[in-house]
């Protein structure tokens, strides 16, 4: 298990203490620990139905045949695994703040991963960088958590990310839950949501921001440098500038809220870890 600034003992303690249940609907995928809407071959009885040719004759309930003189087959619960895809934005913009957004993003990913793995579900960690997925970790079972933590700890936040292109590059073949962790400084959010929805994903958006981004504090003539692409803009800090920024920020947040509702995505906004 990795212990560093992100994954501290305190973090692990909290993680163990607090469990959360992630609801999802599954009907396909590999057999797993999650009850499925589909009927399957588990030992847990679900229902009866009349025999139709082709059914496994081993599942005919002979006692029922004795009483009703009709062939019934026993239906059992199908246990499927849940597939949780975590898309972690590793753009440089995430590495901002006195306590960087990346730390909160990793912790969120680890928390979700831990809970998913506890439920015997599958976690696929996709670390997005540039226009592709730079790390793809597919783990299941409790032993997978250690791998997940290792992968998260090794994640570096360096360049700009084209989230849409990167997410599209992931090969989504089954229904599942897609958790996208980012600051969402992109104009492609709607396209991302469209894509994931089309791939029959339940979507959880985790927006990670810092307090500074909601209420910037600076003074004088400054050359603002974009952490991702090095672009710069000269500004002179003033009340009017901050007012204008706040207006822009509010519009940005409202747009994400609106898109979340539109595509039935759950939105969790984390500001400075809260």
């Amino acid at each position: 298990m990795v212990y560093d600034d992100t994954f501290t003992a305190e973090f692990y303690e909290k993680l163990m203490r607090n469990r959360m249940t992630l609801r999802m609907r599954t009907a396909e995928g590999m057999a797993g620990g999650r009850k499925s809407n589909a009927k399957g071959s588990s030992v847990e009885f679900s229902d009866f139905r009349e025999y139709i040719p082709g059914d496994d004759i081993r599942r005919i309930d002979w006692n029922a045949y004795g009483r009703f003189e009709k062939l019934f087959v026993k239906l059992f619960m199908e246990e499927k695994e849940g597939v949780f895809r975590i898309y972690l934005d590793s753009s440089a913009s995430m590495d901002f703040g006195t306590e960087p957004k990346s730390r909160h993003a990793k912790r969120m990913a680890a928390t979700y991963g831990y809970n998913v793995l506890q439920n015997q579900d599958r976690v696929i960690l996709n670390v997005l960088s540039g226009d592709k997925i730079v790390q793809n970790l597919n783990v299941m079972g409790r032993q997978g958590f250690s791998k997940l933590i290792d992968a998260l700890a090794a994640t570096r936040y360096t360049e700009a990310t084209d989230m849409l292109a990167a997410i599209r590059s992931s090969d989504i073949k089954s229904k599942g839950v897609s958790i996208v962790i980012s600051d969402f400084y992109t104009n492609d959010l709607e396209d991302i949501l469209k894509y994931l929805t089309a791939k029959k994903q339940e979507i959880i958006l985790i927006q990670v921001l810092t307090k500074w981004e909601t209420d910037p504090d600076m003074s004088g003539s400054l050359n603002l440098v974009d952490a991702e692409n090095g672009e710069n803009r000269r500004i002179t800090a003033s009340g009017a500038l901050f007012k204008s920024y706040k207006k822009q920020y509010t519009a940005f947040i409202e747009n994400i809220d609106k898109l979340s509702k539109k595509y039935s995505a759950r939105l969790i906004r984390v500001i400075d870890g809260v």
Partner: protein
Amino acid sequence: MGVTLIWPIALSLLAGGVIVMYLLKQHAEEFKVPSLFLWTEMYKNQTADKPWEKLKKNILMILEIITILVLVVALMGPYVKSGKGNGSTVMIIIDTSASMDSNYKNAETRLESAKKDAEKLIKSLPATTLVTVITSNTEANVVLSATSDKLAAISAVKGIQQTQRSGNCEEGVKTARALYNAYKDAALVVYTDTYVSTGKLNASIYDYSGNINNAGVNYVFSDDNGDDTFTVVAGVTNYGKDDITIATDLYEVYENGEKKMVATQDVTITAGSTSQVVFQDVVLETMGLAVGIGSNDDLAGDNMFFAARKVKKDAEVLLYTKSNNSFLEKAIGLVSGVTLTRTNTADGFMGKQDCALYIFDCLGDVDISSIPVDGNIMIIGCKTGLESGTEENVLLTAENSYGIYTVAVNKTFTYVTPQGNESLFNTDEGMSAGFVGELAGRKICVIGFDLHQTDFPLTINFPILMYDLIMRLTDTSPVDKTDMLAGDIVKVSLSGLNESSIIDPKGKKTKVQTLDKYSSTEELGCYFLKGITEDTDTVFTVNFDCNESNVSAMVTDASGNVDIKTGGGNGILNLRAIIIAIAVVLLIVEWIFYIRQ
């Protein structure tokens, strides 16, 4: 509002230098942000993409530019004028009379101070303003007419010379008034120590009057004691506030202007009074004399008074009459120093010569060309060929330097008063019934009526008039006046000489002919007119006008469209100090901003 100097405006370019320096200096601190995503839209309005926009919010640079501009304005010497020296045309009148030679402020005379103020005014005028410069004393002189060339105007003002003349700015204002209406928007600025009415003219008067410590010699006359000695009497006035004791000196004045002290007396004069100083039995070798006081006071011009030595000499008068005229004879007899000889025959008349005055009374026709040429002439009730007509039973009006009264006569010849002569009696039709003056190089008096045909001899005005006329006509001096003020014109009547010369107090000799008018009388002192012999040499003097000795407080009449201001102040509020104070405040504000940043 105006400025003294224009050239400092070029220094405004320094502001451009500051901007360039700031552009070069622009090095904003780098500030890393997670993304410029949110700033993008905002940049359209808030970022400074263009170089000059980068300067938009730089308060320090703005303050520095403002400070530079304020200092440039301060260098330009801005001021606010409260006087009326505003207009498209400004007429400057400067009083150059003798009183303006009084000490004023800062070891300057009133005129020097006035000239400086006028120069300041000219500098302060807009470039398009037309400036006219006029000097004024007993007469006005347009030194410079309606020029926008400020340097020429300043040069003209600098070139104005102090005179010893009387007068004030009245003549200047008259001249300005004549020019005034020619301009649409004219203003008059008068620099003087004596109030002058400017009427409705848009005018400012700068007042240089004030109390001065001054003493002066008011008059000097000499009396021939008949024993080659003279008595000289001088009046010395103390115009100051304190009693003074000063030395009063008597000088002989020579032709080259040199003076030799003959006698001296100390005299104590109480404040505001005049003391008479008498030099008894002094021997005077020269025809010119002067009395001076050793006073180092505020006005030097009146410290010496010049006079001609008066030599007792009887004048002979020949009266040629065909009728008894005892009123006339008695009137002439009242004049001291006159010997009257009467004849009623042509023989008695023709034998006489060297008379100062020949009087022709009631002789019918008189041929002026046949009468003696060596003296002056008075013609009473005779036909001379000068008449233009006759009038009967008329009431004549006398209104001249000899008095104001009326005379009723039965019959009189009437004349057109010759040019340069003075009418003694006027008819209702504006003709003259007698005149006095000069004709053909001799003094002449013509009275058009017989004294028997009027009640005039019975009035008190008759002997007074006759006394004055005899005094005038028996004066054989070749000049019409011997005691003059600076700038006066003297008429020369040379008897028996075609040409002579006048030597002024500086020893400059000027040739004159009879009937010439000699006007080079600016210099105070004795002027010597050379005659045929030393006996016929004549001295006339030019003295300081005692009215100019004590020009103190200006008396105004509060009428008219005029501002009266104290000289030296010039009605100009200099804004330089205020603007420099503003610049200092700006620097302090800039320093505060700098510290805060």
